[in-house]
């Protein structure tokens, strides 16, 4: 957990004081895309090499995926209810555009 917090703070520090050369920051978006792809490949690799996970998935994979889906759906519904009741609304134009 600590490496993540330190990374976040270091990034924020560099960003706040504008310490990154513009040539690099122009590429930042491509770097993050590459980073996400590498991260997922590595995570997949970790799952694929773990024989216990693979064996477990064969035995109770359907049940596990169903539990995950129900927990996710429950969370989304709960958040939507909360959003109507209490949460502040972020301004629309501030949202990043996803494809």
């Amino acid at each position, binding site marked *: 957990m600590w490496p*993540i917090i330190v*990374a*976040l703070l*270091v*990034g*924020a*520090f*560099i*960003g706040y004081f504008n310490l990154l050369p513009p040539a690099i920051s122009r590429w*930042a978006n491509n*770097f*993050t895309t590459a*980073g*996400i*792809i590498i*991260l*997922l*490949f*590595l*995570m997949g*690799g*970790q*799952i*694929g*090499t*773990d024989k*216990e*996970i*693979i064996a*477990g998935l064969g035995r*109770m*994979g359907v*049940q*596990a*995926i*169903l*539990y*995950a*889906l*129900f*927990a*996710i*759906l*429950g*969370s*989304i*519904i*709960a*958040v*939507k209810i*909360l*959003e109507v009741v209490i*949460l*502040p609304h*972020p301004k629309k134009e*501030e*949202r*990043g555009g*996803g*494809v």
Partner: protein
Amino acid sequence: MTIIILLALAVGILFGYGGLIPDLVLGNIDFLITFTLCFLVASIGLEFGGNRKILSQIQSLGYQVIFLPLAVAMGSIVGSILLGFFLGVPAGESAAIGAGFGWYSFSGVLLTKLHSIELGTLAFLTNVSREVLSLLLTSTVARYGGPYAAVAPGGATTMDVTLPLIVRYAGLDMALVAFINGLVLTILVPILIPLLV
């Protein structure tokens, strides 16, 4: 992007399963994952720090944000109990599986110790699935459910693994919200699981 995510993950699983990943990478895979994650989180921090508008928004971020992880916790547990009802699994066991909030390594080990290997393994697999499904669903949920809903699927992982994707699809102003959400849920896992099971 979702296709690319799915492909990267699938290729990783296949490579891992087929033994195609070099030992040098495999031996250091935990380090490499943490390193990549830190790099991604630092780049989020970078955008964050460089955006004065966001900084002023943080100050206006209400105390209400604390209710977000509580809603995610409640939704996860209720959803799991509901499924358990259909599957004939006792409510406490289902609730404990759901209260892993995607933190598979910890919830799996904890439930193995507290209950049984069987339940621990199911919790482990469920929460691995939750993390993977969250990665795959974030863009869709953000598009149809809005920025707050996009934080919901990831559970405890919204402070690290799913954070980069949430920021990409729900916007930079969700970065801190997602981080707080993941942090609170991470703290709740070791408290809730022993209480529920």
